[in-house]
């Protein structure tokens, strides 16, 4: 699957490049990263959708300061059409938001699975890129949401707990979903180069202990660091996109670079 290199309008003939963003550990910045990556990709002229697949405890709406009247759940329950739930977000991309506190969507029932899949299939022809922002953990909802995407971005921070959870996620995805290739992004990096070191470290352990069903160790492709930056805290507090609030800050530049590398590696 190839992503458009330059600004090209989406055509119905082409299916979106689909990427799941997952981390194992919660609180590493998945939703913050998804939203800002979507903004960076939109600036490259791509038509981008972010699907909030954290069905039980969604908060993409909080990060983007949106107050949606219609969410995925209204589509699931037939109260609204899919078109009504696809909302414009600041940053020039679209979002499909989920609700918060919905226990019945925190388990992968056959209904949730079928509905999620139907919605995903019907948005694919309308966008250049679809990002799936998953919940934390490796529950069946998370794993199913990841399985819908062609590519996976694993987000980690330099904290040992985050690295361990990222490693466990990589192991589960390669053994259960035969993933032989995963992207890695390291968030909250204190020194340039630390992210690369973490990637190499993870790759070494993966090569020693992890085999996909076809018997090969998955390859991690490093998309870059997002530096530790106090602007991120400010953007999150103000519920704005970092790329809009502080486009020149180190973390914004990190996200933009990740987007550029992602497009180069289609």
């Amino acid at each position: 699957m190839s992503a458009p290199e330059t600004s090209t309008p989406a055509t119905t003939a082409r299916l979106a490049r689909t990427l799941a963003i997952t981390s194992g550990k919660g609180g590493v910045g998945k939703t913050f990263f998804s939203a800002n990556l979507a903004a960076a990709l939109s600036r490259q002229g791509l038509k981008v959708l972010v699907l909030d697949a954290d069905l039980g405890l969604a908060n993409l709406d909080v990060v983007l300061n949106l107050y949606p009247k219609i969410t995925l759940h209204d589509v699931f329950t037939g109260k609204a059409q899919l078109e009504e739930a696809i909302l414009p977000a600041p940053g020039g991309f679209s979002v499909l938001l989920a609700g918060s506190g919905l226990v019945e969507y925190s388990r992968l029932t056959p209904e949730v699975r079928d509905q999620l899949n139907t919605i995903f299939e019907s948005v694919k022809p309308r966008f250049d890129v679809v990002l799936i922002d998953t919940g934390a953990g490796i529950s069946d909802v998370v794993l199913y949401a990841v399985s819908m995407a062609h590519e996976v971005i694993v987000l980690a921070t330099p904290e040992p707990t985050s690295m361990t959870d990222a490693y466990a996620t990589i192991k589960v995805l390669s053994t259960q979903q035969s993933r032989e290739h995963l992207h890695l992004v390291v968030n909250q990096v204190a020194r340039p180069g630390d992210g690369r070191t973490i990637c190499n470290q993870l790759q070494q352990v993966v090569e020693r202990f992890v085999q996909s069903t076809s018997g090969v160790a998955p390859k991690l492709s490093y998309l870059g660091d997002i530096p530790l930056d106090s602007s991120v805290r400010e953007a999150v507090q103000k519920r704005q996109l970092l790329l809009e609030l502080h486009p020149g800050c180190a973390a914004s530049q990190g996200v933009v670079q990740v987007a550029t590398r992602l497009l180069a590696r289609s």
Partner: protein
Amino acid sequence: MNVKLGDDSSLHLGKALSLLVQAGWESPADLEPGTEPWLQAVIDGLCDLSSRDALTGLANRRQFDAAIAREVDRVARIGEPALLLMADIDHFKRVNDTWGHAAGDEVIKSVAACLQDCVRPMDLVARIGGEEFAIILPNCPPAFGQTVSERIRQKVAARPVAIVGGQQLSVTVSIGGAFAPQWVRSSPTFWCERADQQLYRAKTEGRNRTCLDMPPLTIVSAEEKGMLFSGFGQFDPISDSGTDHSVPKTTE
């Protein structure tokens, strides 16, 4: 016995009733023979008879085929782990050749009772061939699968079979098992083949053992965790002095 129907035609039930009686069926005392509820009881009795193995009383091949098709549907829809075990009595031909077919039947009955004792009420134990049994275990997590198949194997091995003439025979079983692929519509044939392959492995590896086709293990061992942080001599992710610890985690 003939039963008159409303339109003056009649049903010939003699053969059906003798089959039922031979299998131990008793006409329900509270029902008047020839009435509709009684006929229903006869039909239910015949259905039960046609789904059971005559020698062991276990589910027969017909009931097994229906049950495994249902379970494949259920796993595809619900995604629960389900295990299929195939158990085969080791060197059964030797029992027949040495001690006769009556002894062989006793061995089959004893093993059947053992299998039934070792599983939950929701599990289905079937005799699907001469000395071959199949067990369907719905909602069975991988760790439990190993425990239950090993329990069956040990229980059969520990229970001598009394045969005519006061002799006692020890028998063993080989067991192969496979989990149904979750969230995927598989087929009963494919599932049985995978369990059969494991049974074949158990036989070729020396019999009296259990072999399961386990889902891949994804647990992260202490060794893996150790290796994850082994390079941190030159790179310490937490105690780095340049780290701005005041910055909280971003909102998910």
